[in-house]
């Protein structure tokens, strides 16, 4: 019994399992020359390397936010150790300075004073109405907040320089580790590797500058209840990753199993599977998801005793949303796999295997499935960006994640009326949209690269 109690939420398990599975799949396929060639073809595209760097950053943030624990409370009278009800993640600890000094309400990015006027009290009496001084924003500047411009410039430059230094140190360490292959300054690197390196440098500069600024200011401002918007956007990343990744984990087994069986066996099995997916396909997606989510809500509402903490409840809802999205979106991939299996079934090597008396299960596993993997991989990366975008829309409609879960959708939903204010509060929306845009753009670029590298028809 230490000062912490680790907490494993279901989505943590799933996300960590997924990462382990991905690494394992990569290690297992190391020997496959054809597939390695395809990966190398993909990595030769500048768009792919840059988006991989960006996605790795997002994945890192999401992973830090997926290690949860509860702090021990001060020892109680009976001598036992109790833990706080609040579930924290490693990311929360790293961002602690942003959490410790919440403001009262809106404040603009990098501001020292609040955005709306309030009564100023001094020595017990109300002095007048003015913009109150922020608790965290520029707190080191003193009461008046003078010298803000200079301070920001110094922090910006210092942070960027520190970021660059760390990036170069990392690169130097990596080069020494690999035995000093490439020359300094990026010479001798391919165009794609240079693009990736450049992307890494830009990322390092941005992270450095934002970190330096965040120590003294609210970089993206604060929202209506005074929460730091930078904190909210970083927390949203995990939700987006979970929706984008876990949903495909639900989709893949169903789509692969049904698609292959329908295509290979044919006959009444094929008719039945086609019937099922036509039925699901014919219901407009949002409505089917809405119906399923509404029903899931009823289950959760009527069984409050299932969940120990609010975090577990929100987590169960997030997981259920992934399952629902997966159950409603496997039809497209299933149809593709069925069509491809129909073609593969007639090829000579499959016919030969059948003539030799190889069992159906073995044929499917050894001869059919490997030749479908490129379709699966392409669908996986292409669906990711669509799902991240869908989460925002679903949360707006009210059938997305739990309102207490921080996500791009809940952020946008909470801030949707802010532009109508006068003067407009733009930073929450802008931060959510920009961070989401970068994630989706990187995923889309990666999807393009994967498709061109793995699709035999595109070559």
């Amino acid at each position, binding site marked *: 019994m230490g000062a912490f109690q680790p907490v494993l939420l279901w989505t943590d398990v799933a996300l960590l399992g997924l990462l382990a599975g991905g690494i394992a799949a990569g290690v297992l396929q190391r020997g496959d020359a054809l597939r390695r060639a395809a990966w190398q073809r993909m990595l030769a595209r500048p768009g792919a390397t840059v988006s991989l760097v960006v996605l790795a950053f997002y994945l890192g943030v999401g992973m830090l936010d997926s290690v949860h624990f509860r702090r021990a409370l001060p020892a109680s009278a009976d001598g036992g150790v109790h833990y706080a009800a609040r579930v924290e993640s490693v990311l929360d600890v790293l961002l602690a300075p942003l959490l410790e000094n919440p403001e009262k309400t809106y404040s603009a990015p990098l501001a020292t004073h609040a955005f709306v006027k309030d009564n100023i009290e001094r020595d017990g009496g109300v002095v007048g109405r003015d913009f109150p001084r922020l608790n965290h924003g520029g707190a080191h500047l003193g009461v008046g907040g003078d010298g803000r411009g200079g301070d920001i410039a110094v922090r910006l430059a210092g942070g960027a320089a520190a970021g660059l230094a760390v990036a170069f140190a990392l690169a130097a360490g990596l080069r020494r580790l690999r035995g000093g292959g490439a020359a300094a300054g990026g010479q001798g690197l391919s165009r794609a590797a240079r693009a990736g390196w450049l992307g890494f440098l830009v990322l390092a500069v941005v992270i450095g500058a934002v970190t330096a600024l965040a120590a003294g200011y609210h970089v993206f401002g604060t929202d209506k209840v005074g929460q730091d918007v930078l904190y909210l956007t970083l927390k949203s990343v995990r939700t987006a990753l979970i929706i984008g990744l876990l949903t495909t984990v639900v989709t893949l087994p169903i789509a692969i199993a049904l698609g292959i069986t329908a295509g290979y066996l044919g006959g009444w099995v094929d008719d039945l599977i086609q019937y099922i997916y036509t*039925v699901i396909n014919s219901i407009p997606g949002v409505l089917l998801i809405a119906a399923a989510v509404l*029903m899931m809500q*009823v289950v959760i509402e009527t069984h409050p005793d299932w969940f120990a903490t609010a975090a577990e409840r929100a987590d169960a809802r997030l997981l259920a949303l992934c399952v629902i999205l997966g159950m409603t979106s496997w039809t497209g991939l299933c149809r593709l796999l069925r069509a491809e299996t129909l073609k593969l079934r007639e090829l000579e090597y499959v016919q030969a295997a059948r003539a030799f008396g190889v069992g159906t299960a073995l044929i499917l596993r050894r001869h059919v499935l490997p030749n479908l993997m490129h379709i699966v991989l392409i669908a996986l990366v292409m669906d990711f*960006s669509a799902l991240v975008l869908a989460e925002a829309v679903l949360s707006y*409609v009210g059938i997305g994640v739990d309102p207490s879960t921080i996500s791009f959708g809940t952020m946008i939903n909470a801030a949707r009326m802010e532009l*109508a204010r006068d003067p407009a509060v733009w930073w929450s929306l802008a931060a959510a949209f920009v961070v*989401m845009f970068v994630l989706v753009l990187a995923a889309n*670029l990666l999807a393009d690269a994967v498709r061109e590298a793995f699709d035999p028809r595109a070559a």
Partner: protein
Amino acid sequence: MFAYLVRRVVYAVPILIGVNLLTFLLFFVVNTPDDIARMQLGVKRVTPEAIDNWKRERGYHLPRFVNMREQGSRRITETIFFQKSARMFAFDFGASDDGRDIAREIGQRMGPSLAIAVPTFILGLFAAVCFSLLLVFFRASRLDVAGVVLCVAMMSISSLFYIIFGQWLVAKVWQLVPISGYVGGLSSWPFLVLPVVIGVFAGLGASARWYRTLFLEEIGRDYVRTARAKGVSERVVLFRHVLKNAMIPILTGVVVVIPLLFMGSLLIESFFGIPGLGSYTIEAIQAQDFAVVRSMVFIGSLLYIVGLVLTDISYTVVDPRVRLE
């Protein structure tokens, strides 16, 4: 052709039955009407009488499949399944949970939905085809690369951004159009311009990029090379030959959504206060009005099946080689 249509309609019946069973399963088997009543009335402090009342008011007090208390055919008809699900085949949707007639509501709200959806669809198709033709005309040039990058960037922007930002910029900052609302009739056009423009923009990136690949696929065909060899100008090749042939795959993707235009757009209608079916659906979802959601699921799948049949027919119209047997 006629025999084909009849067969398609007959095929549609089991699919609709499947949809009906699936929704019934979701709404009445996953949770019993008691669960739903308990949630609607608030989970704590709820009496059995209140639940009974709630169920009786809405007709959920009947047994689910077979009513043993009744005689003859009423054993089947006096059940939730028959009253709530089977009657949808006769377009009898009953009343929503707040007591209004769903069929009448749908009839009233169809007009505003179409007033947004039809112009958005036509202009969106036109803009996407024009933009992709432009990129294809200047293919493999810097303009083409920039255009594709623009398409990918536009695809990566959330549709919520187009709506929120567009509404703020055009209606609030520039004050060109009213922020939201609808009056009905021809005089409502100022309310419709902005939603339509935003709808076109939001869909442009994905469809333009897709059409571009279709056009490029077509441009590599032999007949295009023959036409060029005969000295036909690039413009005529593109507009007369490539466009016509590429319309076939474009139509497949597009015709299927035409009937679904009736359903309206969830987001745009809700942001712009258009009293259409999209905002009706959103309000029903947010108020957890299960009767309305069930009806909309049924109508949506019916329209989707109509769209599939229309797609087949459109093949024969644009491509004389296709015969429906």
